[in-house]
């Protein structure tokens, strides 16, 4: 993220996350939302450098998780209950995965994070937590997964597996 042109790379990553919104929001607003994120990130980077970028990503992760819940609640209908549940579980799994990746990427820069890891867990735990959840993030972006009759079942299965794995590893603590 740091070094080289950060905004387009960050924008692409953020835009990928927006692919998990309900179609009605994603199709109408994902591009302009990515624009707003890019403006936000650019200004924070110009003002505060690395700390600004990290701060924006942290806030954006929370904002993304919360807005995902709001968006699926807005899109919910009795017929879409399965999609709502799978979407919420998927959001939980992805939020856990994203936070683990952000945490892992900051280990070398933030003293308290290094202390926390040395005290409470091991790097292998972070890897074990981050790898499957990152894979889940990427898999969720694959088009066939978002379309077709098996979509709700596939999302639900992946979300349950991802959440269970993340929680199990968090509890295990290496």
């Amino acid at each position, binding site marked *: 993220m740091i070094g080289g042109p950060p905004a387009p790379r960050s924008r692409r990553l953020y835009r990928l996350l927006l692919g998990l919104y309900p179609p009605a929001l994603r199709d109408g607003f994902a591009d302009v939302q990515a*624009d707003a994120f890019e403006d936000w990130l650019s200004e924070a980077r110009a003002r505060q450098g690395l700390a600004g970028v990290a701060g924006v990503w942290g*806030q954006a992760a929370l904002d993304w998780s919360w*807005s995902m819940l709001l968006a699926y609640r807005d899109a919910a209908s009795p017929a879409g209950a399965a999609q709502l549940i799978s979407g919420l579980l998927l959001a939980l799994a992805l939020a856990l995965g994203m936070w683990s990746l952000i945490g892992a990427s900051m280990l070398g820069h933030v003293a308290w994070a290094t202390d926390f890891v040395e005290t409470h867990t091991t790097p292998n735990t972070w890897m074990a937590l981050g790898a499957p959840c990152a894979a889940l993030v990427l898999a969720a972006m694959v088009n066939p997964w978002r379309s077709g009759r098996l979509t709700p079942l596939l999302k639900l299965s992946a979300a349950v597996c991802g959440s269970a794995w993340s929680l199990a590893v968090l509890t295990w603590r290496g």
Partner: protein
Amino acid sequence: MAPVRGPLGHVELQILVNLAAGPSHGYELMRAIGVSSGGRLKAGPGTLYVAMKRLVDAGLAEELSPPQATGRQRRTYAITSRGHAVMREELARLRDIVDHAAAAGWLEGPRGAIP
């Protein structure tokens, strides 16, 4: 057109109030909401556009410029006449609450500190 469900949320109302001052785009609105709320309310892009979709669906706000085919899509939004009416109703409702609280003496003392 989707009906407005109950009182407007804080973010929706802040968007309408800021759009009433003139058309605006996403990041401009994010900053304006932070300023107009005294820094108490921070709306990220996700929260902002979920709220914006509700407003557009309800006919309270509208998109001014269509998205461009290539390059940066700087989409601008404006408040509609219906949006103006709903905003005024909502502000009047909030003013009634504040007036009632003031009459009961709850607003005495420094701002932000409820005695």
